[in-house]
């Protein structure tokens, strides 16, 4: 009887554990996790130049995945870039997970996709279109509404994959990628779904408004060499490089993953989301530190137990300092095994996809015990000189059992996600 009860407890415990079993991504420097990881270890940045309506040539991170791999030409004509990125990432994640989409009960699958924003691209395109017709709205596309509804990226993925469970987006500014994973974990634990596709996507480089907005805010990076333009923590950093991209994961409850013999990348073991409630754009280090500590507490960990901290830092002069203050408050002392890095230095700021992509870039560290660096730091800003910061060269380490992934966004939304090496 006692042993039955123990088995019951073990089963219950396994049902509440959620693991990552597949990754699909596209970033400016890679269209699969192995390619992305290799470029992070080799210091290969993916930033280039792009023509932006009304603004001319700008620095941007452009993805080069093959959209026709999973979509027909007509789908591409009717749908959105964010929808296309979602479909590519979802299909790649499904393939990576080894789950057969045909036999999967599709009403038990949830799609939860984080977005910084959605609808700007199509709205700008339509206004430009009708400007050619003297602003006569009878030339406004009948596709405008299905393209601009906030759930579009998730909805397009559900259409393409035939998923009939819940499919929606989570608007959380640049914290959205983490939020996709956190929300999916919660839905799996609640038993709302049995399988989840989750993460974040961004089509932001296709809207001039994002570029113009950051430029007006004096927060848009400039540099003669695009590959050097995104440089968090460098003294000469001068702003954000805007990128597109996407990263979706397959998440499952542990018992389901074990039952089918799934490859397990890691376990979602802790998270927290909070709000600054202090400013539209300026991050609040006190609330960021609170967010990180709350995630550690939920996971039963101390700061010194974290082996990799992914920073959100976007290379704005003030934002990086604010985040470093938060990181220093939590990891500043007594954390000799904590290594800190940043992915935006390679791929720019992929907005709603950022948190999900940055986590993916660090996941292989569980296997290769290597921490990819933050590149483009020629002159470290003393105010960003955190202990454990991995600069310019990959670092071999003795142990990687935990990754803490920070992702913060405008209007003061903070998110921290902790992923542990999977131990049965």
């Amino acid at each position, binding site marked *: 009887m006692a042993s039955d009860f123990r088995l019951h407890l073990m089963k219950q415990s396994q049902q509440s554990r959620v693991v990552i079993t597949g990754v699909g991504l596209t970033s400016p420097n890679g269209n699969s996790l192995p390619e992305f990881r290799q470029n992070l270890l080799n210091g290969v940045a993916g930033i280039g130049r792009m023509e932006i309506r009304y603004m001319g040539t700008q620095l941007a991170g452009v993805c080069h995945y093959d959209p026709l791999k999973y979509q*027909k*030409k*007509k789908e591409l*004509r*009717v749908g959105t870039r964010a929808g296309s990125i979602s479909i590519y990432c979802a299909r790649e994640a499904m393939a990576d997970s080894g789950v057969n989409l045909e036999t999967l009960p599709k009403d038990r699958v949830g799609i939860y996709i984080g977005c910084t924003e959605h609808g700007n691209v199509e709205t700008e395109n339509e206004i430009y279109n009708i400007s050619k*017709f003297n602003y006569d709205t*009878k*030339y406004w*596309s*009948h*596709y405008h509404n299905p393209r601009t509804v906030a759930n579009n990226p998730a909805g397009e993925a559900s259409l393409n994959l035939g998923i009939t469970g819940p499919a929606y987006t989570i608007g959380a500014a640049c914290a959205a990628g983490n939020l996709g994973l956190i929300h999916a974990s919660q839905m799996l634990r609640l038993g709302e779904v049995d399988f989840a596709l989750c993460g974040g996507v961004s089509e932001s480089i296709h809207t001039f408004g994002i570029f113009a907005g950051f430029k007006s805010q004096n927060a848009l990076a400039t540099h003669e060499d695009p590959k050097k333009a995104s440089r968090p923590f460098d003294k000469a950093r001068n702003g954000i490089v805007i990128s597109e991209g996407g990263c979706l994961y397959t998440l499952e409850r542990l018992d389901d993953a074990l039952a089918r013999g799934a490859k397990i990348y890691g376990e979602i073991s802790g998270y927290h989301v909070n709000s600054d409630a202090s400013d539209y754009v300026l991050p609040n280090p006190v609330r960021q530190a609170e967010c990180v500590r709350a995630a550690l507490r939920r996971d039963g960990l101390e700061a010194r137990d974290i082996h990799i901290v992914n920073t959100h830092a976007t290379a704005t002069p003030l934002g990086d300092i604010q985040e470093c203050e938060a990181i220093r408050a939590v990891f500043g002392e007594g954390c000799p095994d904590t290594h800190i890095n940043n992915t935006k230095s390679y791929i720019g700021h992929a907005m709603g996809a950022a948190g999900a992509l940055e986590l993916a870039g660090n996941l292989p560290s569980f296997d290769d015990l290597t921490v990819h660096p933050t590149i483009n730091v020629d002159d470290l800003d003393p105010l960003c000189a955190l202990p454990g910061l991995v600069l310019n060269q990959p670092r071999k380490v003795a142990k990687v059992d935990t990754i803490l992934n920070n992702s913060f966004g405008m209007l003061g939304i903070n998110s921290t996600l902790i992923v542990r090496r999977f131990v049965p």
Partner: protein
Amino acid sequence: MTKDECKKVVLEIIADIAPDEDLGNVKPDVRLRDQMQLDSMDFLDIVMELRKRHGIEVPEADYVQLASLDSCAEYLTPKFNALAAKG
């Protein structure tokens, strides 16, 4: 404009709207949606492209006239010619 020329114009629009379709063997007397994947939004696209590219207006009550290539040519050719006559 002849009816054959009109059919060519309509096919050019359909080629953009349904880029995955093989338009080499479209039967002019068969409903378009019976021989290729076209939904109601696609028909709205045909209406929109006639408006944008050629200044042709098709009132909603007349959408049924766009069912096949033959019916398109019957309905649209006089409109094209009237427009041309206006200069």
